[in-house]
């Protein structure tokens, strides 16, 4: 099968850019050169055919563009002198061997000296090849704001001396966790229905698993994303949120569930029991019929001990309510705080509704609605409120 141009671009953008950044030591220059090379390819390939080694072609063209630019720009002439001495150039001169420096690039983009917003934007732009406009739309910010964010981040990388490298052993874990957090955040942004971001996060997760094959957390995150995403088509019906119990299971993506479980198995075989592995395992259990709520509650308990997160406790409360009844769930929820967290109120409301405590349920649904901007979730809450008042009137 011949890969489409778009597929080739998608796969090669991050790699080409990573090698160029490594070679040029300059994000802007690398990005411009890559953009030019991809534009030339988009123009020529449909006419002349895709070259045998598209990556080598793109790399060579981009490098030549960058070199031309440097030569033209007299202010950068000294820089060229420095580059010539770089051993990397020899590698680049060889048209078939290009070092894969995507990992260096990911760690640079997710460096903790950048704000998380900047890390996310850079990762999507530099690794994922999304345009500034696409990223801006996905995060619901004006395009100039996003452009400014990217410019600032790239400027800081250069000015502050953020290294382009895979962190040494003593920093590796915490820096990898930062990278995983960025991917997770992108996925979560996409989970509310912005599919392109979820797909992007999964793509990044796959690339990470390829680059760091032996880390259980990397596998766990990928497993979790694949498993959650497998239910994407059944999570909304007519623009409204559908809860797990009411989802049409025939619309779950079974291939993706299998892929997610395979990643989870690998994570566990690697000895993983970190937070992403646990979340992957929970997502896997959720995809079973019937759900093993006892097992889910126990894994949430383990996750809560690991993260001390009240949000995790809230999730545990849902599982506990399934086993020991709504009161048991409510007892956990009442000690959590999280007053401004909409899911606390929607969960409370749901459990109160099941207990027939309609007045309290209605207040909780209303509070959840106050805290919810999202259209599909709001419509779901409205419907619950309507149903409640119907039963209250008839009762």
């Amino acid at each position, binding site marked *: 099968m011949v890969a489409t141009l778009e597929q080739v671009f998608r796969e090669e953008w991050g790699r080409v850019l990573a090698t160029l950044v490594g070679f040029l030591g300059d994000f802007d220059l690398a990005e411009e050169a890559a953009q030019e090379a991809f534009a030339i390819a988009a123009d020529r390939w449909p006419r002349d055919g895709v070259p045998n080694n598209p990556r080598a072609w793109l790399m060579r063209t981009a490098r030549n563009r960058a070199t031309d630019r440097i030569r033209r720009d007299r202010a950068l002439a000294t820089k060229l002198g420095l580059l010539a001495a770089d051993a990397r150039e020899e590698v680049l001169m060889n048209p078939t061997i290009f070092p894969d420096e995507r990992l260096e690039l990911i760690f640079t983009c997710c*460096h903790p000296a950048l704000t998380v917003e900047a890390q996310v934007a850079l990762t999507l732009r530099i690794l994922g090849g999304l345009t500034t406009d696409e990223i801006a739309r996905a995060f619901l910010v004006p395009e100039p704001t996003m452009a400014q964010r990217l410019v600032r981040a790239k400027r800081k990388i250069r*000015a502050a001396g*953020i290294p382009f490298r895979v962190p040494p052993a003593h920093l590796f874990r915490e820096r990898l966790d930062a990278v995983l957090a960025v991917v997770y955040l992108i996925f979560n942004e996409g989970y509310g229905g912005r599919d392109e971001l979820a797909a992007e996060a999964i793509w990044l997760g796959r690339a990470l698993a390829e680059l760091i094959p032996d880390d259980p957390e990397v596998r766990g995150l990928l497993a979790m994303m694949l498993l959650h995403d497998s239910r994407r088509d059944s999570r909304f019906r007519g623009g409204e949120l559908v809860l797990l119990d009411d989802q049409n299971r025939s619309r779950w993506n079974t291939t993706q569930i299998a892929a997610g479980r395979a990643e989870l198995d690998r994570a566990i075989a690697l000895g993983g029991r970190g937070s992403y592995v646990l979340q992957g395992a929970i997502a896997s259990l959720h995809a079973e019929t019937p759900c093993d709520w006892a097992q889910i509650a126990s894994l949430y308990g383990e996750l809560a001990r690991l993260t001390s997160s009240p949000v995790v406790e809230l999730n545990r409360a849902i599982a506990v309510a399934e086993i020991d009844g709504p009161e048991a769930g409510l007892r956990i929820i009442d000690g959590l705080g999280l007053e401004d967290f909409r899911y606390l109120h929607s969960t409370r409301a749901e459990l109160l509704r099941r207990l027939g405590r309609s007045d309290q349920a209605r207040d909780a649904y209303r509070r959840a609605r106050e805290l919810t901007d999202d259209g599909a979730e709001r419509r779901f809450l409205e419907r619950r409120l309507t149903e409640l008042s119907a039963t209250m009137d008839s009762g």
Partner: protein
Amino acid sequence: MKYIMVIYQGDAQERQAALSEEEQKQVYADYQGINEMPGVTSVPPLGQPENATTVRVEGGKALTTDGPFVGMKEAVGGLFILEADDLDAAIEVAARVPAARYGGAVEIRPSEVNW
């Protein structure tokens, strides 16, 4: 890369004053250790911010006010210059500055010509 390391005391001076003699010795030893690190150029110690005089010029006339430009807690407490490979190396040095672990902070500013 050349970095200017800016130390803010925040609550560090008060908290360090409350430390045991042993711990205070450690604080001095840590500062001494940083001064002796390769790549570090020390700057004469800054006196207390309450003895600072801040000057503004308006209409060609120098106007002075008592104290630092910012609040007492936000005032710069000390400086040193660090020559390091990259930001990660600078972060490691910054993390060894005692003020940073006693409620103060270290700001890493790359040295750069802005004009």
